[in-house]
């Protein structure tokens, strides 16, 4: 019986993105996936432009950050202010208000206080957390109010932070 060339092994299916990023559009709430390498996309539902700036904070930041990318606070970094992002991982200290359109992970060394909203939340054993939280599958679609949504999306904005929690005497 003649051997048939194994075309599939020579030409596998087109290149697949190695890692996918789960995105939830802050404008309309549509959830979709894009390649982890994508820098910007348009929402397939409402065509809003979304940009992804992943960033790792290793020092102290007092101000606001807004991006649809993944924000990670390394240990022993510290952030005070408002954060709007696609994903959030805290291994340092965060104090303020975070609006996350995806997963939130608070690692065992982290200290988190303030307000948090996100799609899912994991708090590891050893983490210290005291927050007002709202976790739900569909984040509120952005309205005309610009209080908590990323404006402009994908840009890093640094403004003087308001202390949301009074320091203890």
């Amino acid at each position, binding site marked *: 019986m003649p051997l048939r060339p194994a075309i599939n092994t020579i030409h596998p299916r087109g290149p697949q993105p190695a890692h996918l990023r789960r995105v939830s559009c802050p404008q309309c709430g549509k959830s979709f996936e894009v390649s982890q390498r994508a820098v910007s996309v348009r929402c397939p539902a409402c065509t809003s432009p979304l940009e992804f700036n992943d960033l790792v904070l290793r020092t102290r930041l007092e101000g606001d950050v807004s991006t649809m990318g993944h924000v990670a606070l390394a240990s022993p970094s510290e952030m005070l202010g408002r954060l709007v992002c696609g994903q959030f991982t805290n291994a340092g200290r965060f104090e303020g208000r975070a609006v996350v359109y995806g997963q939130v992970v608070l690692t065992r060394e982290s200290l988190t206080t303030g307000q948090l909203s996100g799609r899912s*939340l994991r708090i590891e054993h*050893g983490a210290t*957390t005291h927050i007002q939280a*709202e*976790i739900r599958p569909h984040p509120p679609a952005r309205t005309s109010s610009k209080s908590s949504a990323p404006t402009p999306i994908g840009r890093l904005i640094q403004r003087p932070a308001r202390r949301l*929690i009074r320091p203890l005497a």
Partner: protein
Amino acid sequence: MSDAPKSKTVLGPDCRISGELSLDNDAIIMGQFKGTLRVSGTLELSESAEVSGTIIVGTLRLAGNVEADVVAEDAVELLPGAQLIGQLFTSRLNIVEGATFQGEICVGPKAMQAASEAFGQGEHQEAEQTMLSSMMSQSSETEETHHEQPSPVRTNTSSVNAVLARRRPKVLTPRNGIGIPS
């Protein structure tokens, strides 16, 4: 500790209970409960479960609807479709995508103490202050142990044990070196 397998209490979807219920084992609740619920082991609340009031457990796995204050010494997991509204005190938390939570979350080494003060003495504000002050001092003086730091806020460690003692019946051996008054 004995190695005997733990029994499991199952309350089916037709049950409707109100009042106070203490179970010295693991439990699954599929029906409705209103009041104070204490389970020494793992409590599973299925998709059909509806609970309101106060829940004090070791571990909570939630798939149903709960409007309650929850103290879980070990862990809390919210599965897809679960809904929890209330205060939550635990040491480990996982809210997966598809679950809903709304309220206050206290997690950390002092969470049980904060819970004890919130429930035991009705001094919630003070409990929050205790939690916050301990966190602040923890972050600024990480090398010191918690026990050596003078807390600026009055704390009551015996009430932690009170909460734990209420959760675990006296017949249980204390775990993790936490003393329970007999």
